[in-house]
């Protein structure tokens, strides 16, 4: 039958794509980590890793930074989530939107600018010293990484926790109350355990992101962590140095075990499915003094959240900014530099739109195959595609370099790994889970009877795709496209390995390389601002589309 043949060959094609561009590169990293110089199997590389004081320290530091970032991010997120869920509080809207701001900008973009604001001689410490005569080492060594990372990633905890708290049915608390429970005891025994799934999901995400992050420690001159060590080994010693691969394996294993531990901690229980009503906790009004306190906390965290953006903007407009609270003077010169080197922006727009297009096409077919067909191995397709989430970008980059370096392009005899299109593909693979989630969500809402009724009227599969599914899924597809696109524009850790010439480099790479010199900071910040604007516009657009979709509820109701 034609329809099955078409879908089956599509499934095989997607399977091959994932095999070549996701599974094989990761397998390569694992494989090479077990080879000695002569290409024989050995455990010696791992033995060497654990014998090296530097690597042990790096491992410890990465772990420490990731764990402390979770702690600090929790301190930011928990009160905000609690205010929103428990109280009738006008600041709730502020909190919810505030939660998205840091996600717009990856931590490495603002890292240098944060040094100028919070560093030893940064604005805040200069003021503290003037007024109170002491300084706080926000940005010293590992502190800096923890500080910057937790400001950027606390929304993962915030958003998940709010979702979790809002799905607690109020009768959960009420039944405890009528059995004599109240106050903190009730909170500890009922609310806290019920909000755990959201908290753990968020916290494990923060841990993963921080553990794998490459750009932030590099730009803050913290090299004794795992990701920077892997990068430095490969980029300075070469792609045959086994240590880079060993570190890669350890990064992957840690990521996977963090996910596993989180799963274990949840015990496989999704409470939100079991509570029928939802609708959130019992809401209370603040007492007057509580209200002031709440607003104080919200505005304090708002300041922290916005500080990288403020600092980046100041840096991009400032002439000289050193040992002073604010830059000495302001100029547009950095933006002149930015537009003279607009090739980076052009590259990014090109790469990311192709990558996002690939994502949305793959995601459409994967979700269709998984949700609508009985093709053998369809779940595996979904599983492999989603697993890209747990693979550190840096490790994938190393894998690409290793796998595709030995193949040469037919037209110029250069290695495949140095071709710009590989950057597009790695971005597509990295962002595929986002698009896939969006597609799954919309397709699940569309009743399969809509397709079957078209089928019974004699429509071919391709007609059904064209006339029924794609129009119905348009909003979701577009939102998925934009999410993949905008988050890809600031992806660094995967692409940093694959940039072979400046002229092929994307925006994120430009930000990174400019930020490394004092003279480049201004233009680097300018590029950063441009990147943030692109992502912000994308996020805004996809929110708009999703909202519009909600307004069309009338259609959805019939579809369900």
């Amino acid at each position: 039958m034609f329809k099955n043949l078409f879908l089956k060959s599509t499934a095989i094609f997607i399977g091959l794509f994932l095999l070549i561009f996701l599974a094989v590169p990761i397998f390569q990293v694992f494989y090479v980590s077990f080879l000695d110089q002569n290409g024989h199997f050995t455990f010696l590389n791992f033995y060497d890793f654990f014998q090296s004081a530097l690597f042990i320290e790096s491992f410890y530091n990465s772990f420490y930074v990731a764990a402390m970032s979770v702690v600090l991010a929790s301190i930011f997120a928990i009160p905000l989530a609690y205010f929103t869920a428990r109280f009738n509080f006008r600041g709730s809207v502020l909190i919810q939107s505030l939660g998205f701001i840091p996600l717009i900008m990856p931590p490495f973009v603002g890292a240098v600018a944060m040094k100028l604001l919070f560093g030893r001689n940064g604005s805040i410490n200069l003021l503290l010293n003037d007024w109170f005569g002491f300084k706080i080492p926000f940005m010293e060594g590992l502190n800096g990484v923890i500080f910057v990372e937790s400001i950027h990633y606390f929304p993962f905890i915030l958003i998940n926790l709010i979702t979790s708290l809002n799905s607690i049915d109020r009768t959960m608390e009420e039944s405890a109350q009528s059995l004599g429970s109240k106050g903190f005891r009730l909170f500890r025994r009922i609310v806290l355990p019920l909000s755990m799934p959201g908290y753990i999901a968020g916290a494990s995400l923060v841990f993963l992101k921080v553990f794998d992050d490459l750009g932030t420690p590099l730009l803050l001159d913290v090299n004794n962590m795992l990701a920077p060590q892997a990068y430095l080994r490969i980029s300075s010693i070469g792609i045959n140095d086994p240590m880079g691969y060993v570190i890669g394996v350890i990064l992957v294993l840690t990521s996977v075990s963090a996910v596993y531990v989180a799963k274990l901690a949840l015990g496989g229980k999704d409470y939100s499915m079991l509570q029928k009503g939802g609708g959130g906790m019992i809401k209370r009004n603040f007492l007057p003094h509580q209200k002031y306190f709440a607003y104080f906390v919200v505005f304090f965290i708002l300041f922290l959240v916005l500080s990288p953006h403020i600092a980046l903007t100041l840096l991009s407009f400032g002439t000289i900014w050193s040992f002073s609270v604010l830059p000495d003077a302001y100029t547009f010169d950095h933006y002149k530099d930015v537009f003279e080197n607009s090739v980076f922006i052009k590259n990014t727009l090109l790469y990311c739109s192709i990558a996002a297009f690939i994502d949305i096409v793959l995601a459409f077919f994967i979700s269709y195959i998984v949700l609508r067909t009985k093709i053998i191995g369809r779940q595996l397709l979904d599983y492999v595609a989603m697993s890209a989430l747990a693979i550190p970008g840096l490790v994938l980059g190393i894998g690409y370099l290793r796998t595709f370096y030995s193949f040469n392009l037919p037209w110029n005899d250069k290695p495949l790994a140095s071709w710009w299109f590989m950057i597009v593909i790695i971005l597509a693979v990295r962002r595929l889970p986002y698009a896939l989630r969006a597609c799954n969500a919309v397709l699940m809402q569309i009743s399969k009877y809509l397709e079957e009724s078209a089928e019974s009227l004699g429509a071919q599969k391709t007609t059904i795709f064209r006339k029924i599914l794609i129009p119905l899924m348009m909003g979701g597809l577009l939102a998925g496209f934009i999410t993949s696109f905008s988050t890809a524009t600031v992806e660094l850790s995967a692409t940093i390995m694959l940039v072979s010439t400046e002229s092929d480099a994307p925006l994120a790479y430009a930000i990174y390389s400019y930020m490394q010199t004092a003279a480049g900071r201004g233009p680097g910040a300018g590029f950063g601002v441009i990147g943030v604007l692109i992502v912000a516009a994308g996020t805004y657009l996809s929110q708009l589309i999703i909202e519009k979709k909600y307004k069309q509820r009338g259609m959805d109701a019939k579809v369900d």
Partner: protein
Amino acid sequence: MSENIIEIKNINVSYGSNHVLKDINLNIKNKDFYTFLGPSGCGKTTLLRLIAGFEKSQSGELFIEGNEISHSNPWERDVGMVFQNYALWPHMTVYKNISFGLEEKKIQSSEIKKKVAEVLELVDLQDLSKRYPYQLSGGQQQRVALARTLVVKPKVLLLDEPLSNLDAKLRVQMRKELLDLHNKLDITTIFVTHDQEEANAMSTNLAIFNDGIVQQVGKPVDLYNNPSNTFVANFLGTTNVIEGEIKDTIFKSKKGLVVKNINKNAKGTSILLRPQNLYLEQRNEKFEKFIGAVKTQEFLGNIVRYTINIKNHILVLDTLHEVDKKIYFPDEEIVFYLDSEKIKFL
């Protein structure tokens, strides 16, 4: 102490401009199985939640065992509530769910063990104590919710539409179990439902709510026989209500339907006729004869329900179906009889 365990006096509740409960006065006797019956949005659940302490009234008083409690917190009231969705805590086992209330009361752990075992036996769930709520069926969850409330021996048991999430067969079975429990434990129970059949079958007394007002209070049979208004009459089963005028012993509707032999003392502007008090056969010579046209016919097995058009009134008639009895079809002429002694007046 009076025989009333709960006294509700002049209770008013509004949300903004929405007046949900209007001047409610009710007395609930000790050991009663008392039902709040009414359509959704009538205020019955609000009143139940008010007794449990989850809602606040703008005015009025609420007494339990003679103590005014409208300002005390839910955890100080000693009132047990079983929620419509059961509200079992998904992170606790059946045992933990049940022992929760005892632990909050700081009861010795050996005592807790004993009491939980007792109540598990009471609801027949001895083997499921280690299960989590999501591993239980709807009926089992319901019983855990009951056990969790009963184990702390509350003064009053509040049941908020406890049967609405069960399938029809289980609902009838749980009805019986609930009544058995009530009788065994002698606990005052307030039961909220929108299902008149449930209310009639279970309650010793019931209060019918509509639009935030208590329409009528009494025993189920009394309310069925003597409804005080058309809402009650229609809510407790189907009733034919005909508006008109009574002069001497003759009732005349606005559209011209005439009924004779009306009780001399009857007063009102409407007559109420239950469908089963219209007959196809003249059992008594005093019965008055009418001729109408069948509008619809529903064959329900033991009963056939006709709607009959007579003088532009649509009357509902239920007749017991005996095997081989004649069935009328729409537009057929139909002769029926009316026993004027069964007429009620409003």
